[in-house]
């Protein structure tokens, strides 16, 4: 029996939300961070990262499956108790909030540098935050549906970009194939694993997905789409721009879209990709705002969290203004402060939860 809409989302919407929250990182400064480490082999890093997070993700999902109808934060609370639970959840809130702010700043700086050089950053920031707030306010259902509507369009535009860029590709640029060497590759992939952190944060919405089994499948579908997209785009960047050059390009996605053209008459197709990139970015930050608010609300145990989206959005603006520019935002705040501190968190948290649960469960079983 088909259920009437009940505030829950289906697998399609769920996959779209995850994909939107992560895949658009190929169009901000994340590639710069990765190319610095991975050099010509950067395109392998998403694959390796995918391998790394598989185990913690599976552990987390199996835990969620055991504690039915609980999201990530509720799970943390019920496994680790009131105080430890609060600390962990609070750290997650901070990670999510800072991640939102820094990435938003990065996005705004790209806009400012490339398209609106005369507009003050704060104006752009406020405009984008307001629009993201308006979208996030409509709720998880609306987010999921909008993402599901837009996903085919975004994928189609990506395929078009790949097709147009094929003419510029020089396959020899991917050598040396192992880049900095395998061990270095594995090490730096581990350090940047938080790029996939949204996969963990999204488990906050575990109870809102219509079917548990579908949640598993959905997570893996989205992981597959994200990794494919990232690998393809990194391959494209490296084969179009070559290794040392790519490091000098601040915004590889935008540069690539400037690079391609459809014949002589329509020489500047970048505007087309820009619209899709704008739309994707707005959706991405709406999701971030919503997730951050949800994590925060569950941390302080407020049920009606949609009212909190406004305060969270307002807090994001001054936070995003702290870094002086996007280089500082990404290289220092995002990479040095956030990525390098959070990767153990995402790997170890599920394992930690599992161990605690295991012992608690055993004690409980003995009592019974």
């Amino acid at each position, binding site marked *: 029996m*088909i259920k*009437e*809409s009940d505030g829950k*989302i*289906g697998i*399609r*919407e769920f996959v779209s939300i995850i994909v939107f929250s992560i895949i658009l990182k190929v169009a901000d400064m994340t590639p710069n961070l990765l190319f610095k480490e991975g050099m010509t082999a950067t395109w392998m890093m998403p694959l390796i990262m995918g391998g790394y997070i598989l185990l913690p993700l599976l552990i987390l999902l199996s835990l969620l499956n055991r504690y039915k109808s609980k999201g990530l934060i509720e799970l943390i609370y019920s496994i680790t108790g009131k105080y430890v639970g609060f600390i962990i959840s609070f750290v997650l809130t901070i990670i999510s909030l800072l991640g939102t702010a820094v990435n938003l700043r990065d996005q705004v700086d790209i*806009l400012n540098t490339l*398209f*609106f050089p005369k507009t003050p950053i704060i104006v752009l920031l406020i*405009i*984008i935050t307001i*629009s993201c707030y*308006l*979208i996030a306010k*409509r*709720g998880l*259902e*609306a*987010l*999921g*549906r*909008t993402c*599901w*509507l*837009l996903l085919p369009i975004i994928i189609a535009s990506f395929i078009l970009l790949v097709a147009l860029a094929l003419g510029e590709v020089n396959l020899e640029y991917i050598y040396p194939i192992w880049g900095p060497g395998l061990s270095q590759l594995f090490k730096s992939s581990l350090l940047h694993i938080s790029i996939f952190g949204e996969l963990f944060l999204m488990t906050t919405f575990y109870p809102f997905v219509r079917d548990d089994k579908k949640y598993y499948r959905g997570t893996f579908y989205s992981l597959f789409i994200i990794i494919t997209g990232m690998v393809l785009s990194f391959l494209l960047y490296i084969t179009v721009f070559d290794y040392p050059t790519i490091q000098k390009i601040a915004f590889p996605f935008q540069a690539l879209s400037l690079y391609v053209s459809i014949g002589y*008459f*329509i*020489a*500047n197709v970048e*505007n087309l990709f*820009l*619209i899709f990139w*704008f*739309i994707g970015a*707005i*959706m991405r930050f*709406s999701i971030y705002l919503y997730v951050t608010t949800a994590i925060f609300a569950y941390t302080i145990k407020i049920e009606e969290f949609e009212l909190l989206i406004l305060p969270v959005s307002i807090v994001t603006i001054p936070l995003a203004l702290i870094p002086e520019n996007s280089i500082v935002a990404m290289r220092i705040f995002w990479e040095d402060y956030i990525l390098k501190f959070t990767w153990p968190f995402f790997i170890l948290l599920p394992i930690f939860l599992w161990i605690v649960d295991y012992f608690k469960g055993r004690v409980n079983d003995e009592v019974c």
Partner: protein
Amino acid sequence: MKSIVSFFKKIRNVNNKSTDRRNKKELISSKLAVNLNRIKEIFVYPKNQDFKIRKISIRSINRVGVILYLNGMVDSKKVEEHIIKPLQEEPCNDEKLTNIDLINKVINVSIADEIDTFQEIKKKILDGRTVLLVDGSRKAIYMDTVGFSYRNVEKPTAETVVKGPKESFSESTQVNRSLIRKQLRNEKLITEIMSVGESSPLDISMMYIDDIASPDLVKKIKKRVQDIKADVVQNIAILEQHLEERPYSLVPTILYTERPDRVAAFLQEGHVVLVDNSPAALVLPVTFWSFFQTAEDMYQRWAYGNFIRLIRLLALLTTLLAPAAYIAMTNFHENLLPTDLLLAIAATRENVPFPVIIEVLLMEISFELIREAGIRIPNTIGPTIGIVGALLIGQAAVDANVISPIIVIIIALNGLSSFAIPNTSLNYMIRIMKFIFSFSAYLFGYLGISISLTVTLSYLASIKSFDVPFLSPLSPYYPSSGDTIIRPPVWKQWLRPLNIYPQDKQRKEKVEGDDSND
């Protein structure tokens, strides 16, 4: 303060009293003169000259009776031949005949029954029935003699098609229902009659197919109709506004259609339809696709139907985005245009004193003016609108250096596209949003357009029409026949759209076949 409170209390009491009086059932007495006086009081007789009272002696029971009706509401020929004549001429058989016997044996009108309160009498007379009061009886008889004048069934004016039926609803419930039943011969097609409005009630027929439409949906709509607290609901267009969930929203959530064949198609999918004496019916719940699609999409062959749908999608996007895209291009993203075109545009804009946004607004508003004037203008001076319009949006304005020629092209294209949007409500929505998009493009170029587009999409995705998500079955996904932007061939549409929650999900068994032509 106290006085204010007591004042409001008084008002409430007065209101309560008046509703009490309305709701109280007042029974008919057995004395004809008493009854007649009360009815005269109700209908302000003899001041009201349309109210007719005719005394007759009923031969068959040897008693006096009175026939009551409103002039103009009844078919007087029917009253004379089928009521007065038999009552007066039928020979006396038995003095003990009751009202029921009168109905069964004497009166030859197809619908007749007994009623026993003044409220019912009032309602029946107002509906165009004739009421017979018999001396000594505590019951009255009403007879169906409705004889309004209404238009013939004509061609639809707003939803025209090239291929397909060319009938539209008329100003009569009877005719409208018969038009629907003609299209949809189903024994489970149900008509329930409800009345809305307190002082002059309007009868609304709710139609649905019993074994398809979801019972919850039917119940919900019934409740919503009954909950309307209005003194008068004049017709279905007003009812639409009473029923909708978001009165301030730009987005319509109820379909107003004048085509019986469309109504029949919706009924088969499990929608509910409201009909009254209006030249249209309301379909609810609806989705965005109901507004976007036309009847013709289905009547034309697969390829042609989809072709016109794609053209219409293009028209919709052009209406919404053309002025905004032009503003964004000229203000922010000059590099999108090929150099030659850019130079050509710049050259034409050389002599124009206004910024692009003013130019666009000027022309858009002129076009809207022509549109509105075109509807309101009396037919006799209709052709002038063409001449004035051509001057306004045309060579003269360009020659006067008020606008640039490229704007003429944009606005003309925009206007033409807006006429291709099939539904009036959707048309208004898109035309109003066009201005919002233009402004956001003026402020932030393509970023502004993207923001407006995304916010609009998320809004559309979040709203519901009677629990049915507005963009379903596309998003959220529901199993359906995929009849959204494009449609599959007719034989493949074996599944009803499940977003309407039909009881019976399949129209027919799934057809196994392959798509190839051999």
